[in-house]
């Protein structure tokens, strides 16, 4: 019996040493991991809201999160644009995209933050062609009217990815529904509002 206890104690000691060693590495890398995560989000926000100098996260009373972009550090002026996360159910994952939009309802850029679609098909939503710096699929959204975003198969202007209509549609439709929410909140204007 005492031998068994000795074994258990030895194993316990090894585990404790391991846990402390990991704790140390965790403390060292923690800041870096958090920084990296924040950097990705910051860059994405800057990408989709190129005109904004200061971007502030806002939560509605219902718990929905969106971002307001201001042209200057001063946040008392009207925001130049809004950014919002859109979640669309694709073929093999929920695609998460960040969309930037101006008050006029014109999309200033989108960036897909997460997707696990089929490599070679749906995953092309993030494909950057050789010699280019941004994704050809996501670039198409720039300048489009947010409330009218749709893939070509649904009569819209967004060229869908060959063989991945579900993915393309998921991105377009999730963006459109977020735009509709922004409009309902009165943050962006629709086509008809702009005429007057």
């Amino acid at each position: 019996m005492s031998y068994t206890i000795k074994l258990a104690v030895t194993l316990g000691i090894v585990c404790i040493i391991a846990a402390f060693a990991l704790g140390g590495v965790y403390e060292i890398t923690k800041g870096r991991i958090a920084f990296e995560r924040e950097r990705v989000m910051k860059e994405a926000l800057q990408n989709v809201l190129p005109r904004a100098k200061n971007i502030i996260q806002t939560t509605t009373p219902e718990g929905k999160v969106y971002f307001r972009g201001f042209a200057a550090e001063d946040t008392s002026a009207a925001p130049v644009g809004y950014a919002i996360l859109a979640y669309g159910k694709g073929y093999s994952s929920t695609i998460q995209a960040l969309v930037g939009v101006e008050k006029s309802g014109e999309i200033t850029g989108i960036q897909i933050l997460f997707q696990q679609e089929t490599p070679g098909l749906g995953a092309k939503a993030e494909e950057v062609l050789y010699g280019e710096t941004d994704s050809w699929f996501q670039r198409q959204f720039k300048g489009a009217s947010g409330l009218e975003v749709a893939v070509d198969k649904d009569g819209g202007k967004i060229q869908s990815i060959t063989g991945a209509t579900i993915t393309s549609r998921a991105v377009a439709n999730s963006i459109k529904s977020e735009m509709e929410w922004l409009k309902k909140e009165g943050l962006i204007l629709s086509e008809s509002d702009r005429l007057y």
Partner: protein
Amino acid sequence: MDIKILLIIAIYSILIQNFVLTRFLGLCPFLGVSQKISSAVGMGMAVIFVMSLASAITWAVYTYFLDPSTSILGFFFSEETLPNLTFLRTIAFILVIASLVQFIEMVLQKKVPTLYRALGIYLPLITTNCAILGAAVLNIDGFSAIGLDGKLTCIQSVVQGFSAGVGFLLMLILMSGIREKLELESIPESLKGVPIAFIMAGLMAIAFMGFSGLSI
């Protein structure tokens, strides 16, 4: 409890994202024990058993010890000093699985010797079967494809572990059936054994891709 989501998880883990064919988990036993149907069934059953249990236990360990938001360690620490131990996930899970396998082996040997004789030789192999650890990790990471983006609930985890095991058993049986037939075929000398088994697995993976179109 939503039964529908459990059913979706089951179909997803058995057919759509079969562990062996699309995630490449558990390939070593898949090739090692798929020569005869009888041993394939034994191994598959042992995996189902361990995987369901391991799913439940690793889920509990993660929820009640590692994740600071639900940890029972909250009794001993104040909110601010409560340690975030999620980085110990891998080490905790593999230890849980290794001890669980040992424990099952001892219990079976003492209490259910018939079952032990049937599954016994497969149990030690299971510790290093990546499918078990894979299932445990996936339960925490969630299944984005079927709308489960965060950690699964306990019941969902067990159902996921069980059906991933069923999917594994299914593949083992199909594969061993094919390999028993392949023995009698004349195939190039250099492709005999493992190489042809891989090519067969590739063909099966193509067939199973048909399921990925299921809208659930």
